[in-house]
């Protein structure tokens, strides 16, 4: 039995509520949003395919997949400072990650490249992982722990971990692999910030703050020798970061932690929670399922295959999945696709550009994807600020007005139920039910087919929980 077959065959039990499989239209929306980061186009929503494997294959092969999962890795490696930050170039990192996705680079090679990156922030996108943490040995080690091993090593930075068994010595031993890594301004065309390896360097471990006496802390500082948390000391023959990258990608939680994150992303809940809770005493729910997925993933670290496997599992395809708020990017991509809305550079609305926001390698397109969505949907989902903006933000009114104009240009006037159906297909991947159709038809009639009827309906759909979540 292949590992894929194994997972598909696995029955759902207490980890996930059992349930009937979802309908094709539900699967189409769910999978499109999860895999390609955008709800399906209305044309595709008209007749949801019954062949789910073919659909998933198409989605994982799309350019949208590359951008969406590059964004996933961007958030994983930079945490909450994905794009806007002075000390690293988040956009260059996103572009680099998207290029890795296009090239079908295995996940372990991507991580290897991030840990060993050299060069400048703007030209060598991969350097921006370490730059995000100012290439500080302790911060970079903490980030590697969280992002790639699912473990909070950094707790051991200051004290021996109370719950796990990592010690300060182990943490600082790992950090010492960065002893010869330096963040510096590199001369060049634009002389920008970058990462270089230096010949000599050491990492000092601070003294313990047991009595809070700062002077003693200073006195007790000591040089630490590099040693990985499993006890391996690096050889002298090769660069230390290269050896660190090998140790990280060979660590026992390296594959499970990524599998856990992707699973959580796609089903709403990880086997291990919190996602960086792979301590030495961590307990997974359904450990055999996590282990099977991780074992399969570790064979070739093919992210597409992992996403495909999860998408085709019974657990993923069940009816009544938990409601997960759409990310700003999913929301924005769907709005652009559905309404033709886009922002001009000055932030004002404009007509739809050919090819939309997903045009490959275009700086302008990246601007839409990276900046404006967060401006349009400020704050976190389910907060007052987000809600106020969705109800009454300037962008929202623009989207609604432009979306209605756009549809009427395509479908003619007056507004008919065909227009309304198009809105439903493009945003909700379904047609209105009979009751809804009656109600909405009254709205259209009440406004005598004027554009405002379509605006009101569009506004209501955009504000509905159904639109704003994946389910």
């Amino acid at each position: 039995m292949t590992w894929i077959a194994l997972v598909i065959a696995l029955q759902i039990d207490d980890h996930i509520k059992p349930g009937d499989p979802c309908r094709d239209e539900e699967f189409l929306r769910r999978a499109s949003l999860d895999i390609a980061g955008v709800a399906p186009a209305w044309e595709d929503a008209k007749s949801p395919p019954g062949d789910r494997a073919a659909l998933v294959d198409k989605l994982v092969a799309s350019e949208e997949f590359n951008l969406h999962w590059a964004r996933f890795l961007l958030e994983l490696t930079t945490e909450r400072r994905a794009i806007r930050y002075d000390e690293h170039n988040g956009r260059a990192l996103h572009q680099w990650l998207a290029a890795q996705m296009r090239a079908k680079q295995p996940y372990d090679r991507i991580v290897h490249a991030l840990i060993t990156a050299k060069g400048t922030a703007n030209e060598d996108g991969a350097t921006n992982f370490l730059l995000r943490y100012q290439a500080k040995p302790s911060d970079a080690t903490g980030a590697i722990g969280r992002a790639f091993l699912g473990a909070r090593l950094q707790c051991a930075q200051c004290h021996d971990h109370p719950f796990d068994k990592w010690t300060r010595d182990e943490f600082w031993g790992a950090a010492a692999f960065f002893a010869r890594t330096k963040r510096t301004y590199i001369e060049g065309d634009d002389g920008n910030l970058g990462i270089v390896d230096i010949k000599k360097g050491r990492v000092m471990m601070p003294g313990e703050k047991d009595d809070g006496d700062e002077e003693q802390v200073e006195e007790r500082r000591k040089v630490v020798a590099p040693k990985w948390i499993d006890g391996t000391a690096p050889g002298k023959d090769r660069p230390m970061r290269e050896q660190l990258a090998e140790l990280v990608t060979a660590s026992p939680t390296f594959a499970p932690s990524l599998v856990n994150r992707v699973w959580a992303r796609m089903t709403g809940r990880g086997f291990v929670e919190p996602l960086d809770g792979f301590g030495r005493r961590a307990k997974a729910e359904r450990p055999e399922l996590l282990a099977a997925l991780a074992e399969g993933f570790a064979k070739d670290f093919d992210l597409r295959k992992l996403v495909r496997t999860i998408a085709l599992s019974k657990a993923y395809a069940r009816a009544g999945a938990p409601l997960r708020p759409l990310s700003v990017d999913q929301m924005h991509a769907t709005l652009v696709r559905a309404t033709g809305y886009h922002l001009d550079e000055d932030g004002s609305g404009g007509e739809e550009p050919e090819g939309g926001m997903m045009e490959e390698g275009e700086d302008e397109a990246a601007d839409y994807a990276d900046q404006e969505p967060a401006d349009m949907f400020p704050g976190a989902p389910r907060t007052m600020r987000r809600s106020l903006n969705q109800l009454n933000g300037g962008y929202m009114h623009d989207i609604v007005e432009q979306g209605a104009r756009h549809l009427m240009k395509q479908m003619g006037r007056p507004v008919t139920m065909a227009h309304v159906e198009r809105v439903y297909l493009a945003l909700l991947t379904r047609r209105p039910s009979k009751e809804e159709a009656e109600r909405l038809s009254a709205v259209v009639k009440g406004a005598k087919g004027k554009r405002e009827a379509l605006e009101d309906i569009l506004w209501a759909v955009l504000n509905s929980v159904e639109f704003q979540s994946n389910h």
Partner: protein
Amino acid sequence: MCTRRDFLRIGAGATFGSALAARLTPLFGQEALKRRAKACIVLWMAGGPSHLETWDPKPGKDTGGPTKAIDTAVKGMQVAANLPKVAGMAKHLSIVRSMTSKEADHDRATYLLHTGYAPQETVAHPAIGCAVSKEVEAGELPSFVSIGESYNDAGYLGLEHAPLVVPNPDDPAGGLAVPEHLRKRRWAERMKLVDEMDRSFGARTDAAQVAEDVKVRERAAKLLGSKAIEAFDIGKEEEAVRAAYGDSPFGRGCLLSRRLVERGVRFIEVVLDGWDTHENNFDAVSGLCGVLDPAYAALLWELEERKLLDETMVVWMGEFGRTADINGANGRDHQSSVFSVAAASFEITGGRVIGASDEAGREVKERPVGVPDLFATIYTLFGFDPSKQHVTKEGRPIKLVDKGKPVSELME
């Protein structure tokens, strides 16, 4: 005594009479401490404001640069010549010249001066505004409003206590005032439509979760539909009042903060960015003070006149100070070893200087005040116990302030 009208007529550079300038003595002692502050306004100087060009000038010293000192309305208390109007309000101000911290990186220090804690990888501490929001009962308006953006995450307290952020004080009502053409029939129609959609969706899926989402929307919709949002419309103020705060987004933010305090908002932060003066420090700070000075002075004046200063704290701070040494670009770099904050409130006996930096302005000379001490003071003045513990989702207990001692001189 200076009347409101006088105040509005006073031009740039003028200071107020010193009839009331005598340092107020602690009239009530412990009695007075039993009163509680209702609100706090933080004027946040993003980038790290130079103490040497504001509260702690060193004229005549090498490190002082060209900055001159001026007398204030309080005898013996001097501030930099950049703040002439604020100098006139000195009777309300206590200056702490001996703030000190170990964080000289913008992000880390911004976090510290918002939460009272240095950043830790394993826990996200709430900004003080969020912590205050947690302690008080919510009124019609949100308890915490942030005018401009800074670090104001609610951390382990949860999103419920995140601030309402008004990103642009020039358009504070943006996103709050429902456009005219929608206000009448269509707004109600839209609300009804989306409500029906959600109800039917909830019935088909997870009713409890949908209801929770709807609750947030209803709270927002209630605010949009309420009279209370008039608070955000500074157009309702007299022209002369608006002019007194200065023609700047920060000035309008300060005016807005006064309107919000009047309407029961408990914590407001107003951000003035641009203090990271690595180059051309003296011109840059003097420009920034041109914005700060009228707004700050007008805010104190109005709060006092409306008897709001009796129950409102106004705290001026940034993430750190600037180096005593002037760099090659005529700028100053980051310095956290000593910097200044200023505070005004009913309890903070005005007209005094607490602590001192050394002659150069490089280190604390006397009475070091740590950031946790400052935070413990603010919580105490609100009537909250700074040692109160919250428990994070992971089960870890964390105090509002760790090891901070309220600054007694600020509460006498």
